[in-house]
């Protein structure tokens, strides 16, 4: 593997993945609101329109049901659409197309028509956007068979997983975060310090023209011996921050980034728990029937005898996201909450 130290934003990693795959495969196109002439509402597509033209980088009207479903139909025909939701919050008006059609058509057609379509966009609270714009959809959607769901946390994972998503023959829900798009580039306090200096940057195409990260392989972002923290996406950075604080108290955490909830690499998690005997699960959706609940349940089923205490879950508070800046931060998972959960669950260690 080539090591690289280039400082690349999360959004640039996403763009690289799309550009490289689009040069490789003429069937791939990008469609969504403001992806072409505006260069993307969050500048993920950037100037891609200049290279690929309006046939392959397609601006849509504000019509999520229409263009998400169009992507499903085009994928059935044999194209490889990348459908961008400006925010996953907006996918809710396209629910019939993305969770009723996309993941079920292969099955309902007895294997005749696959839907190799990527739906991607920002997931999770952006920053004082209020309840309707702050959805985290991983818990809701990862319960649907037929789709795959990836939640990258670093530019390296973003590029490698998106390339895999584009090459995959099944519908993939790809959950980014607008709070991470500039990671490693700007010094904003909301951004993670764990990417400074190009850490976790992906290789360039010149360095590795076949760089991909397979689905269903969790990544140990920080090894440790005392407690396993399982998470994905933005909360990975909260977990790393918590682990740093806990290390000062002599608690050595292992941070596991599951990277894809479907397929889920439960083996890596269980192996870690067998070693540490303690487990904390964090995700940025509501606690009831969340991916954290599912992970906890699966760990109990497989490693009950190895646990020295109950598993602690860290989720959003069970309320709609508020507008108020401080209260929104209180409502979301953060490093403080994760550290607290680790201390509580490991108190008898």
């Amino acid at each position, binding site marked *: 593997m080539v090591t690289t130290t280039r400082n690349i934003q999360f959004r640039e990693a996403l763009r690289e993945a799309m550009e490289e795959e689009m040069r490789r495969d003429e069937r791939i196109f990008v469609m969504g609101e403001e992806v072409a002439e505006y260069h993307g509402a969050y500048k993920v597509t950037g100037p891609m329109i200049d290279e690929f033209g309006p*046939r392959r980088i397609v601006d849509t009207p504000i019509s999520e049901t229409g*263009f998400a479903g169009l992507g499903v*139909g085009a994928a059935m*025909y044999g194209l490889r659409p990348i459908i961008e939701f400006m925010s996953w919050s907006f996918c809710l008006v396209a629910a*019939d197309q993305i969770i009723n059609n996309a993941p079920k058509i292969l099955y309902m057609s007895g294997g*005749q028509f696959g839907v190799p379509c990527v739906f991607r966009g920002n997931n999770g609270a952006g920053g004082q956007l209020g309840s309707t714009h702050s959805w985290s959809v991983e818990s809701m959607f990862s319960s649907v068979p037929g789709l795959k769901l990836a939640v990258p946390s670093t530019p390296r994972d973003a590029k490698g997983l998106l390339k895999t998503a584009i090459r995959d023959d099944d519908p993939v829900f790809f959950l980014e975060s607008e709070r991470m798009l500039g990671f490693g580039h700007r010094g904003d306090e909301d951004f993670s310090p764990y990417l400074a200096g190009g850490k976790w940057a992906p290789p360039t195409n010149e360095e590795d023209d076949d760089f991909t990260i397979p689905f269903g392989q969790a990544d140990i972002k920080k090894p440790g011996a005392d407690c396993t923290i399982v998470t994905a996406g933005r909360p990975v950075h909260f977990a790393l921050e918590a682990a740093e604080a806990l290390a000062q108290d002599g608690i050595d955490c292992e941070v596991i980034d599951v990277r894809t909830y479907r397929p889920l690499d439960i083996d890596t998690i269980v192996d870690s728990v067998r070693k540490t005997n303690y487990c904390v699960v964090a995700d940025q959706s509501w606690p009831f029937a969340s991916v954290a609940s599912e992970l906890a349940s699966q760990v109990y089923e497989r490693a009950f005898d190895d646990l020295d205490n109950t598993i602690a879950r860290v989720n959003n508070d069970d309320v709609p996201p508020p507008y108020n800046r401080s209260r929104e931060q209180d409502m979301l998972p953060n490093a403080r909450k994760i550290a607290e959960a680790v201390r509580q669950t490991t108190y008898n260690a």
Partner: protein
Amino acid sequence: MTTAATESKASDPPATDLGPDQLLQKLYDMMLIRRFEERTMQSYMQQKIGGFCHIYIGQEAVAVGSIAALRPDDSIVGAYRDHGIALAKGMDPRHAMAEMFGKVTGCSKGKGGSMHLFDKPNHMYGGHAIVGGQCPLGAGLGFAIQYEKKDNVALCYLGDGALNQGAFHESMNLAAIWNLPVIFVLENNMYSMGTHIARGTSMADDLQAKAQAYGMRYAECDGLDFIETYACFKREVANTRGAENPQWDRGALPDYRKDGRTPGPCFINVRTYRYKGHSMSDPQKYRSKDEVGEVEQNDCIQRLVRYLIDRGLATQEQIDDLDKQAKQTSSDAVKFANESPDMPIEELYTDVYAQPFGPFGKGEAAEGFRD
């Protein structure tokens, strides 16, 4: 629809470019749907078929007339009343019946059922059971055809109930702004379940307004008349084939007209009628027996039979013979379905993913179905 066409219909019987043999073939296709559906109803009553089951009887000229105007490699997608369009597009009646019986020899191995018939070799992109949900897929087929620079067209069938779903309107808009080679085929049987179109759809007596709102071409035809339906689709398919996207010219703004553009997408209002209930469980309290009886006097199959006999293009004997064949094929389909093996438990876990993981398996091709 042009005024000229309306006038010519009033005076002369419509002409057709189909020869006697082709007309007889189309008559047979309609008879097959009729007889097939009779066996479907019978099998449903015998509880061989479960779930929701929507019968196509009365609308045969719509499926056969529209698909007769297509090339075999043109695509179609439809709603849940899909038996007729699946058969007209070429699905083997045995695979259609076996699917409804939940057998592994069905087109979807028993995973789809009556409302979800799919046939890839015949470019039939499925029956879709959420009202209006197939409209964006139809736009997607048109988009893909245009993207690949092919000269095919896609037909997207919908019932009058779908006119009031957002998905329909969003799809019409996308088809218009990108000038997609797709035809939205309204199978207007006047009832959305039990709700008359005038009770649920604004401008029900002037549906051209729906097309004009999007600057899309509009046509209408009598869906109880095969000859007229075929002629309408022949014309409009030609007017749709080769539609080009004005926005591929970067920075160009599309030019919309109230009467739409040619070649470009089209909205066709096909006036038809279903003789049977919305589904098998419908007691039909919302309409009178007289209303149904009146339409039955105007039956699409009988009209084509009269057309052929009156012009000396076929003998009654030939027609009886075709009907006998249709009955035989339908009962063969039931026999095939009856004798086929049930969907096995192993199939429960296949075809969930094209690239499976964990407990999911890779599906095998259904017997004698996929290419």
